[in-house]
């Protein structure tokens, strides 16, 4: 890693100001992805601004929402009794992530901003349109078992590794940002960008912006949610395919449903058409199967990840069957 400077900021405004006036700076909370990105040459920074003492590390629930600080720790959020009870998909997604040690260190903001595990991206000597725009995407003709079947294109097919992001998208979360231009709130559904022809741009965040809070609306739906993560080994692994689902039924009829998918899209994937196909209908195997086919209607599989087309449909069946009490 290059020799970088380091500043501890004392408030969000100060952190933003320091970052704005310090070239090649970035924010650091847990550092659990940042250090590897710098070591691997995927990113380079001259200055780190520590955002652990800004007062944005709390977890609170009020009548309207769950508010989680950008610098709150994954473990803190996962083990919060009200998160476990009222937003179980969040807790499950967090506990299925990383390792206990990393969950003690890593922040919510950092988790959302972590970058793809694609081996080509993380290898500084490899071509990669995300890291070096225009250099090519070796994954398309190379190893792509961990890559996307949805939302990709000629430029990039990398998936986003965050389980939390998938869960938050399913719960209609809002990401609050503070930047040199002030504060703004971005629905998480709009937060992540498709790679298109600019895979180096992953989120709507502007230079120098900081994630201060993430709000999740309190709904009955959120309380009936689960996370299913499929991996090649028992645990401590990024998702091969994952599903976050929230489901409310009345009798057998679906009153409302939220679905988000990991491991299959070039960003945490939500398809409202799939949800619409289930809403108002009885929850049957057939209905779920149709929804699954709808989900993969535009799938573009590659040599190594073809199985995901089938597996994500089955994962959908599994999680909705569980939530819907179908077995």
């Amino acid at each position, binding site marked *: *890693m*290059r*020799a970088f400077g380091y500043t501890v900021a004392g408030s969000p405004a100060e952190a933003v100001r320091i970052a704005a006036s310090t070239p090649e700076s970035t924010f650091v909370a847990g550092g659990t992805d940042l250090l590897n990105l710098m*070591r691997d*040459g995927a990113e380079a920074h001259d200055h780190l601004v520590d955002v652990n003492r800004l007062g944005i590390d709390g977890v609170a629930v009020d009548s309207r929402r769950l508010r989680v600080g950008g610098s709150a720790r994954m473990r803190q959020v996962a083990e919060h009794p009200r998160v476990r009870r009222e937003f179980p998909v969040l807790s499950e997604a967090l506990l299925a992530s990383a390792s206990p040690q990393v969950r003690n260190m890593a922040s919510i903001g950092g988790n959302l901003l972590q970058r793809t*595990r694609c*081996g*080509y991206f993380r*290898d*500084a*000597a*490899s071509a990669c349109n995300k890291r070096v725009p225009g250099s090519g995407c*070796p994954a398309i*003709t*190379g*190893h792509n078992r*961990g890559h996307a079947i949805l939302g990709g294109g000629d430029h990039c097919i990398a998936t986003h590794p965050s389980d939390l992001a998938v869960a938050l998208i399913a719960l209609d979360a809002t990401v609050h940002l503070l930047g040199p231009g002030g504060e703004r709130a971005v629905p998480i559904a709009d937060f992540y960008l498709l790679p298109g022809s600019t895979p180096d741009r992953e989120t709507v965040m502007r230079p120098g912006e900081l994630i201060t809070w993430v709000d999740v609306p309190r709904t009955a739906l959120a309380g009936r949610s689960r996370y299913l993560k*499929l991996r*090649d*080994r*028992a*645990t*401590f*692994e*990024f998702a*091969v395919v994952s599903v976050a689902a929230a489901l409310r039924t009345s009798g057998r009829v679906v009153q409302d449903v939220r679905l988000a998918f990991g491991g299959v899209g070039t960003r945490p994937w939500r398809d409202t058409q799939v949800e619409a196909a289930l809403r108002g209908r009885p929850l049957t195997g057939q209905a779920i199967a149709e929804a699954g086919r709808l989900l993969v209607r535009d799938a573009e599989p590659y040599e190594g990840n073809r*199985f995901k087309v*089938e*597996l994500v449909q*089955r*994962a959908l*069946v*599994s999680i909705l069957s569980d939530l819907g009490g179908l*077995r």
Partner: protein
Amino acid sequence: MSGLVGQGVARVDGRAKVTGAARYAADNEVAGVLHGFLVMSTIARGEVVEIDTGAALAHPGVVAVYTHADMPRLKLPDFPFNRRFIPMQDTRVHHHGQPVAYVLAQTLEQAQEAANLVKVRYRAEHPVARMADVLDEAFLPEKFRNRPNEAARGDAAAALEQAEVRIDQTYSSPMQHHNPIEPHTTTAVWEDGTLILYESTQGVVFARNAVAFAFGKGRESVRVISPYLGGGFGAKGPTYPHTLLTAAAAQLAGRPVKLVLSRAQMYTSNGHRAEYRHHLRLGATRQGMLTAIVDTSTAQVTRVEENIYNGSDSTLRLYACPNVHVRQLGVRLDLPTSSYMRSPETTAHFGLETAMDELSYELGIDPVELRIRNHTEVDQQSETGQAYAGKQLLECYRAAAEAFGWARRSPRPGVTRDGDEYVGWGMATETHTYGVIPSQVHLAIGPDGRATLRAATQEIGTGTYTVLTQVVAEGLGMPLGHVTTLLGDTAYPEASLSAGSSTMPSVAGPAADAARRARDAVIALAVADPRSPLLGVPAEEVVTENGHLFARGDRDRRDTYRNVVTRHGSAVEVTGRQDNTAGHSFGAVFLEVRIQPRLGRLRVTRVVTAHDLGRVLNRRTARGQVIGGVTWGIGFALMEHTMVDPNTARVVNPNLSTYLVPVCADTPSVEALFVDRSEPDGKLLGVRGFGETPGTGVPAAIGNAIYHAIGRRLRDVPFTPDKLL
């Protein structure tokens, strides 16, 4: 004899390991040391055209950046230096991740960053990385370590033709990496023309020899020290270029140099298990007796090396079969050379044990019964029909089958369910060759009555310190705590490389021999010493126990090691030697898998093993090898796969997050049985090499269990969930 040998004595190096006191190679503090870091090639084939070191040299703290232009001329050592070239002796690039420059700096961080700043220009040639593309170029390589790559007995082609039933299948396994937790490390210190290496090695003697040869020095000018090794599994058996380069850098800089490979660098620096395809044809009678085996395998080799490390030993030896033809072919790819990786025979054995299972279903014969029918007491490759000395494999089948409950097995696949899980049972024979390397030990008993054993063999986690201490303590008749074993230093007598399951069969005998001699020497002193109560007692009437010497008929006539040696005035020192021969260990593994085919989820839920390893020297450490080996088998079968980009020949997952090794949650409880009917013959203790036998049958057993569970036959590892959908 006090009966220490065989007991599950707790490891004597336990305290050192659990307190962090055990010093591994990278833990040594050397005054004035500089930190080294390698710059690795980013192309897989071609030439280095130019190296711009300007920016690197300008980085604060950087002392030097060496290239091929600076390196001293080194001589290429023989095996076990298993590269056929030394990097940085010329501009040729043979594989991606080959050292092209060496950075030295005051701190590790400076060296790491400076390495990033070295700019290398290449003339790149297009590499060939995919075996499937060049299978038609497979060739029969030269023999390796005196073993030809083609072996035959009888007329396998004809016998196959005439067989009543045939199995003809291809099995495969991908490139895999050892990934010991401790990365390779070398600290080189030159002092007045002598070189000291704190080295992570499974063989201090071989490392010393290779380095001395490379630098054109006498062996006495090089000392290699490695008292603790953080995992080897074959990765640290050979000596590799980075060791030579570090010694060279230290020589050039006139300062000690410490190098620790990064995890990514280990994927191209220390060998790996070669990608492997196995075409296996079995011919048998309707009663299941094997009449023919034609075994043709193809493994990755390189453009400059062609050693085949994955031998079809079990095809040749395990089952009674009069007609066998084995060919071990190689295919040249622009990748680093492969090497031995824990239980190298697993790759071929996986195919054999799977094919046997396929045969059992084809014939409607129970898989265990099929093995029993083809069991042999005779070494099939021996021209004289030499029988194995005490092979208990049949008892292993019986004991493990019973403990597992195999009799309750339903013979039809796909019918056993538990909720939404399909349950499958599979078994396989386990076997592996072990080697022997002539070894010596030195044993000294001091005036304090304590014994110190010295040998230049290694502790790599298998329990060498503990078992040798037991052997000596029992042989002398001393308490365990009175014996200290010192290993891993070429200042000690030359002893076995700790690889190929060779440590125990090579060193236990010499240790026992040394203990016997030392005991005899002390007894001789006592019975001749007027100051000893044992004066005049016939030597064979003296009993040793707990550090005491007694007259057998009269226990009141007694002396102690301490007193005898003190009176003698100087330590009693002996050298121990004992020849032994290579051989095989055997066992059987039975396991249960549970599969949820909707999501392709598989769990290995129950494992029972029974092994015949000759004399069990220490129940705990032997069991450790079983649970370790079984887990390696699970990794081999279900998840391990080094991915190489087909266009650039670069490793795509040079880490521990996308290269998957088993985690704690992957492992079931293993019931490990031992069949020990050995006759400790006093000299060799009935000791065989064992470490690599457990786990050899696990991948096939898992595949066999999968077939039993869902009726699907998988022949290509890893068996990832997508293959189980």
